[in-house]
């Protein structure tokens, strides 16, 4: 690996100053499971690596029924999926956090890092998108909030400007009769990059029969994870029946603009969008009804 300067600031202000770095090429280090591998593979060159794991705000993990969820950008996946309150309130996010890599990777890898890596296949990104997660960003010009839906701008690219750091992700308190689910297709049982992944969330009416609103996000089928807006619009106000879900799954395919590559063909991926959307919606509806 190339030489670089390693710094581990303990305050956000210091981290921003070090990231801004007077013309130095800088990069933030959280779990390192993408950054270190990419540096070794010479994907980019840097002068300074800023380890953000010693900054208190980035280690915050708080979850309550009234205030919702705050996940600091340096919190590893294992701390998220082992939290019993998060398991109950945000099962769709737990689905995603518990299938990234193996146990070794989950000890280090962070949701914040997954988002900042901005891979089209990033497993937590669709799960965050369907739950209206927002990004808390801090930089030389102060703080700003960006919806996760707008964070990724291309493969490996995002809205972070020079000197900016992702501090935390915030998810609103879940409403009653709300459920979320996340699924990924890979040819193995574990440890692979998504051929397609799909997140879904639904809000049901009081009788738990009609869909008030739904969100569907697709990964690995476009330059960034995308919302399947046509399918979402179709579902609003409909009865949660098998026929409705089938039709939404079909509509979701139109949001997919995949490429052929070593992991799958365009045809296979579009087909998988239909299958996974259907199953993710079914899973989200079961959870909204409290049946799972």
């Amino acid at each position, binding site marked *: 690996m190339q030489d670089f*300067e*390693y710094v581990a600031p303990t305050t956000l202000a210091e981290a921003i100053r070090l990231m801004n770095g007077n013309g130095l090429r800088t990069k933030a280090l959280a779990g390192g499971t993408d950054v270190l591998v990419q540096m070794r593979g010479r994907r980019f060159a840097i002068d300074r690596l800023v380890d953000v794991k010693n900054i208190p705000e980035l280690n915050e993990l708080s979850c309550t029924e009234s205030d919702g969820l705050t996940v600091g950008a340096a919190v590893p996946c294992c701390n998220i999926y082992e939290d019993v309150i998060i398991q109950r309130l945000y099962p769709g996010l737990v689905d995603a956090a518990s299938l990234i890599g*193996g146990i070794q990777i989950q*000890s280090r890898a962070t949701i914040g890092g997954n988002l900042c890596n901005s891979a089209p296949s990033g497993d937590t990104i669709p799960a965050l998108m369907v739950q209206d997660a927002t990004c808390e960003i801090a930089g030389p010009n102060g703080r700003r909030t960006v919806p996760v839906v707008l964070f990724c701008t291309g493969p490996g690219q995002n809205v972070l400007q020079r000197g900016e750091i992702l501090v935390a992700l915030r998810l609103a308190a879940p409403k009653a009769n709300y459920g979320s689910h996340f699924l990924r297709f890979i040819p193995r049982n574990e*440890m692979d990059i998504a051929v397609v992944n799909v997140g879904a969330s639904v809000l049901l009416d009081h009788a738990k029969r009609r869909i008030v609103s739904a969100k569907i996000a697709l990964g690995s089928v476009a330059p960034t994870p995308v919302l399947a807006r046509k399918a979402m619009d179709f579902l609003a106000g409909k009865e949660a029946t098998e026929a409705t879900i089938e039709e939404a799954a079909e509509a979701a395919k139109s949001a997919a603009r995949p490429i052929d590559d070593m992991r799958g063909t365009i045809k296979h991926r579009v087909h998988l969008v239909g299958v996974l959307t259907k199953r993710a919606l079914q899973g989200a509806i079961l959870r909204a009804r409290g049946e799972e």
Partner: protein
Amino acid sequence: MGERVHVRTNINGDAADFLCEPRQSLLEALRDILGLTGTKEGCNDGNCGACTVIMDGRILDSCCVLAVEAEGKTITTIEGIAPLDGLHPIQQAFLEEAALQCGICTPGFIVAAKALLDREPDADEARIRHWLAGNLCRCTGYDKIVRAVLKAGEMMKQGPAIGQRAGVLGGKAGGTEAGKSVEDVYMA
């Protein structure tokens, strides 16, 4: 060469200080600086688990951690698994079940399995297979490894005498044996 950094850790029960470059992984520090060559390099990109160690109670791939990130951490490597007077039940079970052939993946499997059985002594086959998904083996086909871990779980439950070490730990950190260079260790 980058400026070297002083890192203070505890490895296998002993204080272990070392100097490293920021670009060196924990795996490189263990093997090349501390002479703890039991931890193996496989893929060097977080896929194979051959370099698995326990850091502050969590298993991780030491190739995907910088040595400088280990500052203040407590680490267990394969050298710290066996008691002074024999084998850990997981090691014994690996032998009895012939759960290794070439052996390169074995330290990683044993360290990962220990972390599982310490947390979940009753882990069943499905749980073991899931837990070990981050460890690759190209020889055994996994069945023998899974059988060995199941057996080790039983052994550990039966006798605290086997498997429970009493404070003193094996594998010495902090350098190679007196008079030996790292190269000697590699050649041995």
